[in-house]
């Protein structure tokens, strides 16, 4: 089905692949939107503290003090002010893209409901933080924003005296009220930080810092823009006039023009409906929830590899309860488990080489067990030393593998490539079930299960337990990391592997004759 989500997913994927190719996956900003959000927050915090020191919190001195900061000290205060504004705007941009991206990649429901739900207050708090910031400059824009916002708030009728009456005339606005606004602009961002911290509580190894080079490039770019196009005020506020034309910050104030078009009730209705829809999204159909991973204590020795590798903090080590001589055992919280199978691929007891038809392993997916996986491999390859074909292990979130099937390759689909224990590759090649193995995972900057691609690469490279044994002939193995818009690269990788295997086939008999 081609719905809006798959269109958006393809669009994100196309941009990602372009950036991966030019900048490399580790510098791709689209893969680090959450981390960039945090980075922008810190820029805003530091520049905000700098600006607050010379800022005059009285309504009569505020404008002049901001002007002094901007012009008398253009190289320091002026730059700080620009950083403060542009990083705040960048935070909105990063947040909206991040939200759209998580949605497009279907990473917002099931066990991810917590991250999604806690993102919603983050969104609100960010907007309130930014909007209150614009009041403080007390220029024409501040006047427009303050009056429009308080008229909107007054519709709710929760404040006895209309807030907008504070802005009726110059003598109506007191220093005390203005100081209250300054206080809001400090308190709300602190709540925002707290909400951002809660937002990460269920994610293991969240990426909260962009890689250094990306951070440096971002900061340098912001400094350059701040010098080239400093943030300026729009003339002092004057309550005896209407600020007829204002330069809006479209990141924070996008909806303000609606206030002039719609009644306040409709605006609140729109905001409420949007918020309720966001909050409800993780629980809207279609529901598909695979069963959580299960631990088989008889196999588990409490090594903790599954705990290290689980992207969702769903496995923990708890004290041993069955009397066997290990200190710990693994325990799965089914409420957190996304059934990605990464733990199964990580467990040292997951090996397809056993003789028994039911393979026992320390941790397994009931619906996609190790036994199921071996049976799939045997079914797809025919289970004999057929030798000449290519067997692909493909993540079901990666590029479409239809073309591989047409090209004659066998394809085994997995919820995540890292569900595959590396010994499975050894199994396929040493039993000559296929001549070559192609591993098809998500694009490096778009791994559906966040850490699957990274773990699989490290296992193949021998840098992470359980690693792919040295005896596995690397020339018969190829990997390709490809998102939905990258089906072409998958087939190219397949053809390349095929060609390499053809070369080996000529040499192989000689080797066999020797051994």
């Amino acid at each position, binding site marked *: 089905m081609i719905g809006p989500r798959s269109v958006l997913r393809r669009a994100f994927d196309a941009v990602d692949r372009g950036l991966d190719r*030019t900048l490399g996956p580790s510098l791709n900003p689209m893969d680090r939107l959450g981390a960039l959000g945090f980075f922008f927050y810190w820029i805003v915090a530091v520049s905000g503290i700098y600006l607050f020191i010379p800022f005059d919190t009285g309504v009569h001195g505020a404008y002049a003090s901001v002007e002094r900061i901007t012009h008398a000290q253009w190289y320091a205060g002026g730059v700080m002010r620009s950083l403060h504004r542009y990083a705040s705007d960048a935070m909105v941009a990063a947040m909206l893209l991040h939200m759209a991206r998580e949605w497009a990649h279907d990473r917002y429901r099931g066990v991810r409901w917590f991250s999604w739900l806690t993102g919603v207050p983050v969104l609100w708090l960010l907007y309130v933080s930014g909007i209150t910031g614009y009041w403080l400059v007390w220029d024409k*824009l501040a006047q427009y924003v303050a009056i429009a916002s308080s008229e909107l708030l007054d519709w709710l009728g929760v404040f*006895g005296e209309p807030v907008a009456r504070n802005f009726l005339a110059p003598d109506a606005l007191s220093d005390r009220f203005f100081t209250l606004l300054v206080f809001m602009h400090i308190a709300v961002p602190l709540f925002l930080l707290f909400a951002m911290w809660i937002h990460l509580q269920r994610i293991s190894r969240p990426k909260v810092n962009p890689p250094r080079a990306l951070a440096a*490039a971002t900061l340098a770019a912001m400094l350059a823009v701040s010098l080239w196009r400093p943030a300026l005020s729009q003339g002092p506020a004057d309550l005896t006039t*209407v600020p007829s034309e204002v330069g*809006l910050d479209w990141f924070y104030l996008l909806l303000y023009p609606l206030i002039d078009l719609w009644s306040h009730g409709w605006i609140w209705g729109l905001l409420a409906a949007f918020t309720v829809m966001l909050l409800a999204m993780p629980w809207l159909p279609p529901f598909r929830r695979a069963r959580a991973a299960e631990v088989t204590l008889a196999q588990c020795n409490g090594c903790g590899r599954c705990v290290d590798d689980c992207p969702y903090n769903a496995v923990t080590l708890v004290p041993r309860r069955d009397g066997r001589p290990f200190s710990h055992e693994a325990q799965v919280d089914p409420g957190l488990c996304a059934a990605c199978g990464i733990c199964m691929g990580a467990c040292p007891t997951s090996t397809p080489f056993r003789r028994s038809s039911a393979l026992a392993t320390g941790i397994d997916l009931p619906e996609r067990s190790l036994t199921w996986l071996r049976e799939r491999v045997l079914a797809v390859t025919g289970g004999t030393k057929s030798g000449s074909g290519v067997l692909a292990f493909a993540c079901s979130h990666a590029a479409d593998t239809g073309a591989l099937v047409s090209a004659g390759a066998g394809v085994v689909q997995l919820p995540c490539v890292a569900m595959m224990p590396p010994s499975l590759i050894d199994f396929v090649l040493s039993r000559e079930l296929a001549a070559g193995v192609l591993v098809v995972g998500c694009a490096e900057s778009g791994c559906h299960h966040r850490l699957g691609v990274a773990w699989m690469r490290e296992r193949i490279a021998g840098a992470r337990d359980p690693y792919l044994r040295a005896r596995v002939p690397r020339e018969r193995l190829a990997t390709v990391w490809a998102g939905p818009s990258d089906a072409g690269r998958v087939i190219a990788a397949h053809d390349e592997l095929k060609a390499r295997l053809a070369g080996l086939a000529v040499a192989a008999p000689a080797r066999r004759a020797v051994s």
Partner: protein
Amino acid sequence: MSPALRYALTFAVMLAATAGIAALSDWPLYRHHPADMAQVKLSFSHGSDRKAGCRPATAEELAKLPPNMRRPVVCPRDRPSVRIEADLDGRPLLRAEIRAGGIAGDGPARLYRKFSVPAGPHVLDLRLSDTGRAEGFDYTGRMEVALAPAQNFVVDFRPAEGGFVAR
């Protein structure tokens, strides 16, 4: 691609993104109010006369109360509505009956209304009744003003200053 080139490209991408962001931070301009229009804002927060609802107590009512609490009049807790009318250049601008605020209807009646009017000379006639009477008004006012474009002309109601005041 060499790492130096990658870093340079990353900087270029972030520079383009930040420049776009900076541009949208105060542009394009938004016209919130037509250039040749002025604005008249009528706003007040006024507790109407509670005594207007008072009446003499009946003998029965007085008999029920302890002697030290017997007062010759009884007054309702809630305040009457405030009725306001405004005419601009002889044409009706506003006709409203505003109920007293507060849960028990014992708080001030509140008004906050904005009107866009062409710049130039205007006559504003204002009438207000705060005693709950059905006919006539307790306060009236007339203001003759020459409004400049984008001027914000605010009229408040302050009985202590004699009624309608321009602010």
